[in-house]
């Protein structure tokens, strides 16, 4: 099917300043998308407050607004530029949140701007904790026992039902900001207070802790003909309880049999369809009980995610570029595969190597931050290494951290005592 001709001008939202959990991954994906859309002959308007990004280089977009990424400013840009469409799924959580806000202000309707890839209902369904839980229930998948609170006096009732330890997750925040694990009432009250403050809609979810469960992620892509493919599976080296952004991760998943992997693949296909992401990429996270294989869905991001950059580089499949082309009407079997040049994007990359991502922390620069890992992300960067064996990739990844580490077991100064928890 050809690309859409009824759209001429597309607005893309960048991800703004670099913060923990939202760094250059979204510059990478946004730049790819802008280039892909320009290649197709669309006029691309970009808004991003961060001039230190590739995507704000003058030759990338047709017009670039270096302005704060807020609903008011975005509304003004829309009023001035009159784009035909808005592509909100490439600028990380910021882009998605702001797009949602301008849609609710009625700006999109007023100026006849179409939201591509995912509309308001889809974003809400995936991001709202209760709607997501209901959606998973509809397709027979399990999510951890939980309760939603909007006020502090709802906390104690929830505790009775769920029991400690409890994971605290504020809704609509970045990288799980303000979230954490509470082992007692004092910790819980503290986390709930900050969580309610930080959440865009003053909503915090309290959830059964799956501490110690195996954690997996799948990167999924769908086109408008409902073709769905899995680009990459990722297994967390650190079990549930440590934020994925703070986990060492490995692609492809290493300890799933085909039977279990296919259950996860089926679940991911069902989730992207149930949530209704029409085109583009999504990221689905699962937890698996190592004792009996019980599977739970943790979350789904209806957009290009932080892991997409890793998955793209791990497999050679340019997720953001393909997502942009799918958004304007192409199907997977019409887009050339960038690796082989001869075949099409409707395939699932199979790799003959291991990819290891290792997070990098700089606690010395954040004296007020506690230097232990929880469900809210604390790393400021990461290294990625490719090797023909896990060991090779792992050692290369460690050396690339530039912290003077020569590799696991290769440092004289390293002692097993360092691994014991203080």
């Amino acid at each position, binding site marked *: 099917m050809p690309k859409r001709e009824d759209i001429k001008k597309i607005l893309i939202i960048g991800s703004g300043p670099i913060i923990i959990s939202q760094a250059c991954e979204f510059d990478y994906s946004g730049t790819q998308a802008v280039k892909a859309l320009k290649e197709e002959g669309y006029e691309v308007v970009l808004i991003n407050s961060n001039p230190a990004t590739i995507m704000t280089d003058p030759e990338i977009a047709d017009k670039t607004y270096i302005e704060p990424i807020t609903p008011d400013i975005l509304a003004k840009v829309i009023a001035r530029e009159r784009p035909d469409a808005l592509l909100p799924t490439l600028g990380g959580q910021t882009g998605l949140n702001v797009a949602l806000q301008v849609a609710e202000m009625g700006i999109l309707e007023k100026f006849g701007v179409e939201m591509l890839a995912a509309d308001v209902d889809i974003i809400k369904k995936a991001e709202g904790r209760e709607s997501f839980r209901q959606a998973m229930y509809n397709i027979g998948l399990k999510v951890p026992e939980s309760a939603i609170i909007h006020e502090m006096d709802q906390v104690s009732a929830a505790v009775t039902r769920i029991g400690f330890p409890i994971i605290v997750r504020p809704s609509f925040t970045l990288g799980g900001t303000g979230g954490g694990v509470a082992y007692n009432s004092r910790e819980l009250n503290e986390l709930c207070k900050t969580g309610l403050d930080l959440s865009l809609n003053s909503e915090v979810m309290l959830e059964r802790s799956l501490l110690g469960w195996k954690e997996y992620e799948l990167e999924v892509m769908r086109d408008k*003909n*409902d*073709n769905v*493919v*899995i680009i990459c*599976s990722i297994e967390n080296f650190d079990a549930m309880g440590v934020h994925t952004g703070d986990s060492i991760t490995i692609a*492809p*998943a*290493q*300890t*799933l*049999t*085909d*039977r*279990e*992997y*296919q259950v996860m*693949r*089926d679940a991911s296909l069902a989730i992207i369809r149930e949530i209704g992401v029409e085109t583009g990429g999504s990221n689905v996270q699962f937890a698996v*009980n*190592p*004792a*009996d*294989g019980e599977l739970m869905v943790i979350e789904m991001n209806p957009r290009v995610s932080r892991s997409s950059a890793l998955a793209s580089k791990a497999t050679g499949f340019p997720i953001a570029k393909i997502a942009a082309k799918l958004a304007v009407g192409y199907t*997977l*079997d019409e887009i050339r595969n960038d690796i082989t040049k001869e*075949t*099409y994007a*409707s*395939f*699932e*990359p*199979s*790799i*003959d*190597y*291991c990819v290891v991502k290792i997070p990098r922390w700089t606690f010395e620069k954040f004296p007020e931050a506690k230097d232990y890992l929880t469900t809210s992300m604390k790393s400021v960067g990461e290294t990625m290494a490719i090797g*023909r*064996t*896990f060991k090779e990739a792992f050692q290369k990844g460690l050396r690339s951290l530039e912290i003077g580490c020569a590799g696991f077991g290769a440092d004289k100064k390293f002692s097993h005592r360092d691994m014991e928890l203080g």
Partner: protein
Amino acid sequence: MKALVALEDGRIFAGRSFTGAGEATGEIVFNTGMTGYQEILTDPSYKGQIVTMTCPLIGNYGVNNEDMESNAVHPAAFLIKEYSKIHSNFRATGNLADFLASRNILGVEGLDTRAITKHTREVGALRGIVSTQDLDPESLIKKARAWPGLVGRDMVSAVTCEAPYGWSEHGPVSGTGFNGSTAGKHKVIALDFGLKYNQLRLLDSRDCQVQVVPAQTSAADIMAMRPDGIFLTNGPGDPAGIPGVVETVRRLLGKKPIFGICLGHQILGLAYGGSTYKLKFGHRGSNQPVKDLTTGKVEITAQNHGFCVDFKSLNPDEVELTHINLNDDSVEGMRHKKYPAFSVQYHPENAPGPHDSLYLFDRFIEMMAKN
């Protein structure tokens, strides 16, 4: 223990056995699946082949009792980059090294599997030998060349069942008379060319009573069992090398609904009057994109075949092309226009592989319900 792999064209690769001593000859093929080594090892279609895995770390999740696709290991040897001595999986009942060693299958690690794969892609699937006993390259190359290869050979007789059996939810039940289950609505005869258990599991779970019969069972004997449908299974080797079965299938055409998979699909192609040819290095893996030409939809499929139906050899008035491979445009599925018969080259029963193509089993059930 040091091991050498020698190819008929003189290439030598060095590795280490992780299963003890041994020697084996076969056609060297590669599989690109990133999961499913146990299913691959127990798939009878690999009879006569030495399987190389492109996925570098094998053994991570051990082995278990449920992921058996037959009751034996079929490849002559198993070649990998690195064997993981430690496994981590809740279903594991043992490790891969013991699993192979107890069945006298040679497993070799430390090989440059990428080089083997690239070489195979360039020159095609070659005859080869793996040994820990003979480490003289010249002698090994000679032995590899002396192996007869797969073209024109009947490999099915080595893997088809010796006696008929039925299928219950717990596994095979010997005997005739659909004695595995009694409740199923549709009686299906599976003509066994080297089937995978998941095909029977899927038929059983779709309200079928299944009777598996040896490949050489005659058309008259099959019809005497009064089936509602006939299922032609996958299997190893060259479809043109198996005596009698093409004629059997030809006699069954039009009598009852027929569904063929892999070798069963190739045999149907021959029964329709067509021909088959050997692919350069075949399709083996779990990520082959196939387009259903009737719906335009793409499914990601599991594949394992070295031979292919030549669609040009078929009469387009009688046979319709229904599925093609998006990587190389080869034939992946076809349907007879007059008779209730359809088939696919890939493995809709997966195990290992994606579940995208299960609808084909439903289609077979519908076809039986209509007839």
